[in-house]
Structures are given as C-alpha cells and as structure tokens.
C-alpha cells in the first residue's frame, strides 16, 4: 500500500540520502476564540535515520506541538511533513494510524500505560494491533526483559509499579513493534534524577542499536545525552 506522496531525494550533487523525517516550511496555527495562535512558524528540519536529537526550548516554544507533528497525531496547517519519504498530509486517517503503529514508538512523560492491562499486556498490545493476534513468539517477554522486567513484575498492573518501572514498561511498549523512530516527550520529567539517568542510559543504548531517537526536554543535562540539539523559541528553530 502506497502511503501518501513520496518525497524526492534531498541534497545537492553527490548526495543521495533521504532523511527519515523532513519538515518543509511547516506551520501549525490554532484558531482560538481570542484569535489565531501560531504554535509552529515555518519550521524546516531534516532528521536522518539513526540520529539522536534533543528538542529543547522554554514552555510554549512549540516542542509538544512539534512532537505531535512527528508522531502524526496532528497534521501541519501549512508546509509538508515527510516520514520515511511519505507526505503525511496526503495519507488517510487509517494510513496515519498504521504508520504510527508500525514506525513510531511514543514514550510519554506521564507514561500513559493502559490501567486495565498488566505490564506484559501493555507491551503485548501493540503487537496485537499489528498482527491481530496474541503474542505467541515471546517477543513481549523479550522486550520486557531487555528493560529489566522479569515474569513476576510483568504481571503487575501499572498502579502496582513505581514511576521508573512504569517508564520502562512504556519504553518496552514503544519498542515492541521495532519502530524506526522513538519519540520521547520529557521521558524523565516524572522521575527522580537517578531513575531519570537510568532511563536515559536505556535510550542511549537503543540509539546505539540504530534507533532514531527524538527527545523533548528542557533539562540541559538530559539534552547532553543527544548527539544533536534543536532549540525552539516561539515556534521557530533558533538553533540546530
């Protein structure tokens, strides 16, 4: 199935590399009762496969809006966003859902685990969405093991886990479908410093395995883990 319009190769003579993510003159405008609010203002950015990018900026700078665009939870008001060469604006709702399921892993600040499911079932859930059947391959177990969960802990509900443990489960859930892109929105924001660094070590390890990691943070110490920092201010990129 062709997902949207395919982007042309980028770069000048001699360059033949298509960025995994490309934003071209992307703006996002919210129409509020008080007037229009521009959350992203003519953003152009390329992120290549395997990069570890930190998105930084003060509150209201447009970091979360940018993450929503990258996670295809939203579409630009103007401009074009390509992911793996596909223009997301030209995709149907269902195609965007499938791309989100298959290509993107999302780690949230508040973990956002499904409270009715156990840790194992939370991790198994994306596999069920993709393959329409329960996991019989042991993949969910293996991913949970890779983030330090044993069988006994996997049976616990989210409310029975600590913040750090919940975030590990969230990372396992994000990874289980082997996405190309891992989006982490303030993944250490709700954790103590020590646990936060442990989570960051985990993300660094995943980047080492070839994952493209995009991290939103306002903590410079956390941003130091990334190889590249993009700073936003008032919806514009001020440093990249």
């Amino acid at each position, binding site marked *: 199935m062709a997902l949207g319009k395919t982007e042309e190769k980028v770069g000048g003579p001699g360059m033949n590399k298509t960025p995994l993510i490309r934003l071209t003159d992307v703006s996002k405008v919210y129409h509020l009762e008080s007037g229009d609010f521009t959350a992203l203002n003519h953003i152009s950015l390329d992120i290549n496969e395997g990069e570890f990018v930190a998105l930084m900026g003060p509150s209201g700078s447009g970091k979360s809006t940018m993450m*929503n665009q990258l*996670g295809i*939870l*939203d579409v630009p008001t103007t401009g074009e966003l390509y992911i793996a060469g596909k223009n997301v604006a030209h995709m149907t*709702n*269902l195609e965007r*859902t*499938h791309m*989100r*399921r*298959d290509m993107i892993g*999302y780690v*949230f600040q508040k973990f*956002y*685990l*499904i*409270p*009715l*499911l156990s840790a194992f*079932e939370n991790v198994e*859930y*994306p596999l*069920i*969405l*993709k393959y329409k*059947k*329960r996991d019989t391959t042991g993949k969910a177990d293996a991913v949970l093991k890779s983030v330090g969960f044993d069988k006994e802990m996997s049976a616990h509900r989210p409310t029975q886990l600590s913040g750090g443990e919940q975030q590990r489960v969230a990372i396992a*859930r*994000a990874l289980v*479908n082997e996405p190309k892109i891992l989006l982490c929105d303030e993944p250490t924001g709700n954790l103590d410093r020590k646990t936060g660094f442990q989570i960051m070590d985990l993300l660094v390890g995943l980047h080492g395995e070839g994952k493209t990691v995009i991290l939103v943070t306002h903590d410079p110490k956390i941003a130091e883990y990334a190889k590249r920092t993009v700073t936003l201010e008032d919806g514009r990129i001020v440093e990249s």
Partner: protein
Amino acid sequence: MRDIFFDLSVRSVKLNFLRSLLASIGIVIGVVAISSMGMLGTNMQLQVKDQLSTGANTLVITSDAVRIGLPGSNPTASSSSSGITKTQLLKIKQSAGTGNTVIPLYRTSTEFTLGSVNGRSSVYGIAPNDVTSFLTIDNGTNLEGVNDALVGSTIATNFNLKLGSRIHIGKANETESRPTVRIVGILKARGMTSDNVNADNAIIVSRDWYTAEYGGEDQYNQVNVIVKNIDTLSEVKTTIDAKVNTDPKTPVIRIQDASSRLSSITSTLSTMTTFILAIGGISLLVAATSIFNVMMMSVNERIQEIGILLSIGTERGEVRRMFLYEALILGILGGGVGGLCSLVIGYSVVSAMIGTTAYFFLPESIFYIPAGMIIGMCVCVVSGLYPAWRASNMDPIDALRSE
C-alpha cells in the same frame, strides 16, 4: 483466542461492576416485561384457539336479523322471523347431506332456584339423542323422562349439584308454582367453544319440556350442523345457504363457521398482545436511557485511556468496537438474567392470569424469552452506538491532555 478489546471491555465492566449491574437491572426489567407480557398474550391466544377448536367442524345457523320492512310498511307483513322454522330446518337437513348431523335447539335464559339459592343460566332444549352428538355426560345418564335435566360443569360446581337434585325453573318471587326438573347427568366441562353452545353454564332439557314451558314449537333459536369431514365445511355452508337463502337480498338464516369466529377473537387477542408488548417496550426504552448514561460515563472517565489507545496506533474502529463490546456485555448480563427471570415470572403470571400453564412451554410461547433477550441486547448495543462513536472520534491530543 479472546479479542483484546473484548478483554478491555470485560475489565472495564468489572471495574465499575455496581454501576454496570444497576444499568443492567433496567434491561432485566425490560426483558422480563416484554417476555412475560408476550407469553401471557400468546398463552391466552393458544388457550382460546384450543378451546374454539372444539366444535370447529360445526356450522352455527341462526335466524337472520329481524327485518322490519321498508319505511311505512307494516312490520307484520315483512319477513320478520323469530326462529328457524320447520320448513327451513327440513331444507337444512336436505342440503346438509348424509353423514352430517343436524341438531336443532331451543335456547333461552332463565333464573332458577336450588333449595334457597337463586341462580341464572341458559336453558337449552335439545332432543336426547342429539345431546350425545356433541356433549359428553361426565356423570349420570342422558335425558329420559320429560322432567329430566342435564347441567353444565360450572353450575354443578358452583351450586354443589348432585345427581337427583331438583331445580325450580323461573323467578323465585313468582306466586304460581314453578316447573321443576331433576338432574340426571352432569356434563363434562367444555370451556369456550365455537358452536355457540355454552353448556358449562347451562341446563339442558328435552325439547318437549322446553316447548311445553316456553312455547315456540318448531321455531328453533339455533341449528348446529356437525360436518363429518371438516374439509367440506365450506361446501356444506354454501349448499345450505343456496337452498335456504333463496333471495340473497333478504336472507332468512345466517350461517357462521368456527373460522370466522376464531379469527375475530384471535385478532382481538393479538391486538391486546401487541398493546401489552408495547407497554413492556416502554420499560426497555427507560433501560436504554440508563445504558446510554452509563456508556457516556464510561467514555468520559476513560478519555485519557482513549487518547493512549489512539496515539499508539489503535484504529478508530477498534476503539468503537471496544465500547460496543462493553454495551453488549451489559446487554448479555441484563438479557441473560432477564431471560431467567422471565422464565420464573412469566410462568407465575401465566399461571395466575390464565389458570393453566399447559401452553407455556410451546415454541410460540417460550419464543418470547430468547426474543426478549435479543431485543434487550440490541437495545444495549444501540444505546452504546453514540458513546462508542464519540470515543472513536476523539482527537488523541485533546484526549491525552484530559485529566
């Protein structure tokens, strides 16, 4: 393998079990109302049909309505009639053909006294040899002497009549001496029949006794033709009609068969059943509102969860399915319990209202239990449609921000 969305729905129902249970009680009540009312109506219809099938092979012939002639004419000169005449009876016998039984009978209504107790009943004058053609003597013998009488089962029970008891016929305050009959037999109960002879509440006397007391010899109130082969009922009816009602504009007799009476009664009962089913349906409407309310609460409480599901790649159709499953679970819960309750309550209602449960387990009656359950489940699912649609169409970003 169980569907994960079904699992999520089951867990959500378990988490809010009390609320779900209360919402389901509405469905239970609705299912019980529909099933019980439906079964009650059907059992009534079945009973009436069954009773009317006794005598279904009988043509009931009565004198046509008395005509008073054209305006200004002399009523006595018109074709007014007070009964079926001897000539008409002869024609009926001739056209009924061999093998079919023609029973002329007299009928009136009278008061009577037994000891010091007064009562009222029909009195039929029937030839003794005709009695056993369509009535069964449960206890005693047939009419023999001129003062002999048979009584119906209802009268016998209500007045505690015994064989040999004497009944004074006529009003109790009359000064002149009243005729007396002696009970020689008690008839078997017939219930409602289509031959227009309500023998259960009647005194049967000989034709001679009847005409001696009431007069009107050879002016029969009714003639019943018992047709041996029911398939020829219509044919016999047409033949008699052609023979006796020679002028179609001024018919002298009216011929009714059981089917027209049966269809008239069952049509009335069917309308009644539909009406009481509609009343039962109102309770399901109330239940639907309750289910809708619970489903909306469930959606509103789980907005963030819906946001999570959508943001990690759950299709909108899958979210919709999850909430429809939840509504279906409430329906299964309410429908299942409602079905069981319907069995018990329906049985009790039918037993109390009709007096018999002989028809309760017949397919056309018991059918209302699964039908009520399915309707209850459908009502739940329909009530869950809008909440499910609302959940599936949420903006994942807004949903995730919700606290």
